[in-house]
């Protein structure tokens, strides 16, 4: 029943685009969307809207360090409209300073904590670009804030997700990058990751290539190449590996930003955590990561994930940023098939819901929209409420999972990064035989567990009987 509703809705959803492509992208019309009318057919055991609160996440760090604090400076979304009300910042920086820093960063996105590496206390921070402009404006509080994250004598890296050229050009529009003279303890690295329409075009070309009906092998490969999709995957993964390497191998903290700090920045911070942090490879940890690094961090899902590959008009804000992230996660999962608690279906499910969903989780562009204007928490259901039911979870659980506490370093060689067929060739090829193989794999492991349980029971029974025997015989 639920399935049917969903399909019907998808149908209506598509229709609405045919007739009024612009209408649905405005905020008002969002409230007319399916999630506002969807009534769950299941009992909510755990309300997903409260599953990943910033306070809880902070507690995970606070046991290891006292250098950070929660700041409520953005409670009314006054300092930064795209940040959540609660953010983690260095303890030594007060809210007044944060307000000043916010005026110096794009979109008010002052540097906040993204990840704390317990192993060596190094951190990943993220922000918007500094508004240095052409005359090299600086901000003492900004410098102080960033330096406050460094331990004595330590250096850090600033990873700018734009090329040096692009970053320099940004100065003309009031943006810019950190001058080394003003941030002497920091070294800047430019790791270019593409944005917006470049990514969108890439996706459109890729989907077109996958649907190409010719029998020509060479055309398939050139089309795949020309789409540049895998080039983007390689770029993003490389940047994430570099970030992780700085943290884990060089023992250096990093600050990551591009222009707004809502797209490529989040790809890098979240993938670095997948590499570094075993918890983010579990189902719950990954959900928390998406909640923290994408939803709360203000990735504009509403703008980016409106129409996917088949948009007829060039949507200015449309870009498969989140899909690229999921693809990168799949690439790491493919290379470390036993280190993730979730499977490929979990990633595909997230992709689907990011673009079209009966749940409110991916609606709106940031917390201020979703929480204040749309009141999603009151009016819609959270995706996590549905996903985290045991019955659903079992579909997304990787049977091969063995907790792996190590840092996992993926290969970024082109030979190691194939096309994600599960997404892109999903409708072009039958997955029957692959599904059967998956089923077989589950059976092998389930049978093993079953036997293990039986053996344990018998061992226990036997032990009891034998001690009983002993007792009976002894008197």
């Amino acid at each position, binding site marked *: 029943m639920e399935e049917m509703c969903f399909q019907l809705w998808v149908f209506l959803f598509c229709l609405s685009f045919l007739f009024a492509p612009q209408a649905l992208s405005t905020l008002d019309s969002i409230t007319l969307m399916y999630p506002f009318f969807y009534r769950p057919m299941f009992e909510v055991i755990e309300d997903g809207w409260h599953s990943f609160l910033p306070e809880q996440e902070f507690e995970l760090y606070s046991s290891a360090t006292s250098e950070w604090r929660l700041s409520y400076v953005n409670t009314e979304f006054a300092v930064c409209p795209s940040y959540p009300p609660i953010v983690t910042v260095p303890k030594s920086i007060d809210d007044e300073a944060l307000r000043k820093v916010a005026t110096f960063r794009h979109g008010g996105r002052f540097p906040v904590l993204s990840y704390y590496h317990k192993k060596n206390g190094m951190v990943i921070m993220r922000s918007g670009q500094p508004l240095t402009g052409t005359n090299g404006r600086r901000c003492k509080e900004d410098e102080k804030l960033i330096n406050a994250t460094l331990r004595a004598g330590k250096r850090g890296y600033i990873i700018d997700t734009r090329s040096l050229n692009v970053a320099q050009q940004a100065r003309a529009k009031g943006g810019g990058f950190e001058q080394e003279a003003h941030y002497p303890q920091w070294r800047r690295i430019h790791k270019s990751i593409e944005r917006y329409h470049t990514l969108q075009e890439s996706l459109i070309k890729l989907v077109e290539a996958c649907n190409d009906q010719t029998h020509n092998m060479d055309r398939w490969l050139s089309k795949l190449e020309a789409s540049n999709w895998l080039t983007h995957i390689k770029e993003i993964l490389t940047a994430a590996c570099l970030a992780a390497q700085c943290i884990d191998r060089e023992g250096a903290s990093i600050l990551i930003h591009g222009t707004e700090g809502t797209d490529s920045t989040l790809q890098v911070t979240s993938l670095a955590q997948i590499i570094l942090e075993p918890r983010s490879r579990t189902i719950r940890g990954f959900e928390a990561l998406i909640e923290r690094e994408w939803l709360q961090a203000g990735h504009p899902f509403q703008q980016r994930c409106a129409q996917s590959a088949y948009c007829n008009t060039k949507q200015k804000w449309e870009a498969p940023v989140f899909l690229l992230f999921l693809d990168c996660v799949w690439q790491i999962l493919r290379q470390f098939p036993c*280190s993730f608690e979730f499977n490929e279906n979990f990633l595909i499910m997230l992709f689907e819901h990011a673009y079209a969903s009966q749940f409110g989780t991916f609606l709106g562009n940031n917390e201020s929209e979703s929480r204040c204007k749309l009141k999603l928490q009151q009016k819609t259901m959270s995706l996590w409420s549905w996903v985290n039911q045991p019955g659903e979870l079992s579909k997304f659980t990787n049977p091969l999972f063995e907790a792996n506490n190590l840092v996992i370093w993926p290969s970024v060689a082109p030979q190691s990064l194939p096309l994600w067929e599960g997404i892109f060739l999903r409708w072009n090829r*039958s997955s029957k035989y692959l599904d059967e193989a998956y089923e077989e794999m589950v059976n092998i492991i389930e049978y093993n567990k079953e036997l293990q349980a039986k053996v344990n029971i018998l061992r226990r029974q036997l032990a009891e009987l034998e001690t009983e025997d002993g007792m009976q015989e002894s008197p």
Partner: protein
Amino acid sequence: LEHIHRVSPKKAALGTLYLTATHVIFVENSPDTRKETWILHSQISTIEKQATTATGCPLLIRCKNFQIIQLIIPQERDCHDVYISLIRLARPVKYEELYCFSFNPMLDKEEREQGWVLIDLSEEYKRMGLPNHYWQLSDVNRDYRVCDSYPTELYVPRSATAHIIVGSSKFRSRRRFPVLSYYYKDNHASICRSSQPLSGFSARCLEDEQMLQAIRKANPGSDFVYVVDTRPKLNAMANRAAGKGYENEDNYSNIKFQFIGIENIHVMRNSLQKMLEVCELKSPSMSDFLWGLENSGWLRHIKAIMDAGIFIAKAVSEEGVSVLVHCSDGWDRTAQVCSVASLLLDPHYRTLKGFMVLIEKDWISFGHKFNHRYGNLDGDPKEISPVIDQFIECVWQLMEQFPCAFEFNERFLIHIQHHIYSCQFGNFLCNSQKERRELKIQERTYSLWAHLWKNRADYLNPLFRADHSQTQGTLHLPTAPCNFMYKFWSGMYNRFEKGMQPRQSVTDYLMAVKEETQQLEEELEALEERLEKIQKVQLNCTKVKSKQSEPSKHSGFSTSDNSIANTPQDYSGNMKSFPSRSPSQGDEDSALILTQDNLKSSDPDLSANSDQESGVEDLSCRSPSGGEHAPSEDSGKDRDSDEAVFLTA
């Protein structure tokens, strides 16, 4: 022996080089590992002396199993000596110089002989249901009288008399007349193979026409035969000028003629060469790689071979029509296509033993020129071509699409490829059965099949189940365009770049689980037996006692759930193979497989390398492994100058 550096893309090591009669051995100086790299001379494909640098004289050795080793030898003169010796050693001129004649796995004569009879082709024809009403064993090629590149044991239609056969053989290149390759029991259709007819522009041969007629008659269910010429039409037409060519539909009654354009051995050799150049690129961009892959045309060729195989399998299984396949000489493309088609048709060939049989039948016995194609002896470089490599890749491509259909795993294919070049076993020596008999290969060397069979546990696909639907009948590939189904096989062509392969092997994991499952099954049985015994004893003791024991037993059951939850898999205890296997065998360039010591165990080169910590990837993508190396060392390559300066500073 001398002190030299060995440089791999990832790291350099100082060590000593030994040249023996059979191997190049490089032993690292580092005292705790003293890691050894063994390379068989027969594996060496090319040796390149590069321009001398400040550190010494670099020597680049490329192997036929896609391993690449760079040595830097301090003294130019030494380097030259090594170069000259290796060139000589890598190109033996006599069969007796090959490794298989000195290789001794410590087996006695009887074991060796048993090894050679493991794969028995007469058994195989029997399995197909032959001889029968339509097909008979012919002794026409006794003592290789008719065709010296064919085996002596051949199946031909009953209606084909010796006169017809001999007549037909005179009208075929190298006298390779049409014979049976595979017989499809279910509907009497068959796959036959031959070489091209010597038709020129107008020549005909009555006996050859009768031969094809006989093949058609041997399949009562169909009134025509497909004749599949696996060459591009242009090539076949060019052959007519040389008095060869293809069948004229007008001359042969009831045939349907079909070209399937698979390119010749020279095109394939160049294609592989181009693809390997791409694999060798240092930190290629995604575009470099995909462009290079496309330009090599390799996957296009793989697809062409698969398409031919699919066409034939369909003709046989769905249309019930017999097929005669040929190319020019009928020992390269014909072998590829017949074996792919048989593999698609018959689940037996998808088992370990069946696959050995298939190679034995379609390749070894029908005179695929192993010596020439794989350059075992020094010969014409233009004869070398990766013909069987392509077949092996086709199998891998199928395995990717039908993960449960094959009893063997990727490692099995890789090791067969390795040994086709290694000359460690006698199976693939020479160009024909006749030559092998003359050399008395079976008395003087060992069989690879026995070796693989002995270690079969390493080659099993855990997902294979004999009663699984994928293992039944014909494999049906989609007819829709499916270019994207053919993928680059990094497990083969970058197999020595361990960092590029998935770091955890699902196959190995599942095999370990299955092994544990088996142990558990045994334990369960033992426990049940013991329990039963004790319970019997107790019952016999007193009824009162047994009554007393009841409640406690019950409580044992009810808590059992908890007890399971509390013991989350003591894999480390029970599963010896999984956790212990990975780190110890994860050494990155443990190059040479199959030295005598590790013959007993299986070859380590494919095992899971799940020591992630040490598998740190260099971001410049030719992944340094080894956590010992700080990222600042050489990771600057790939980045903007801005940062590189800092990282090395």
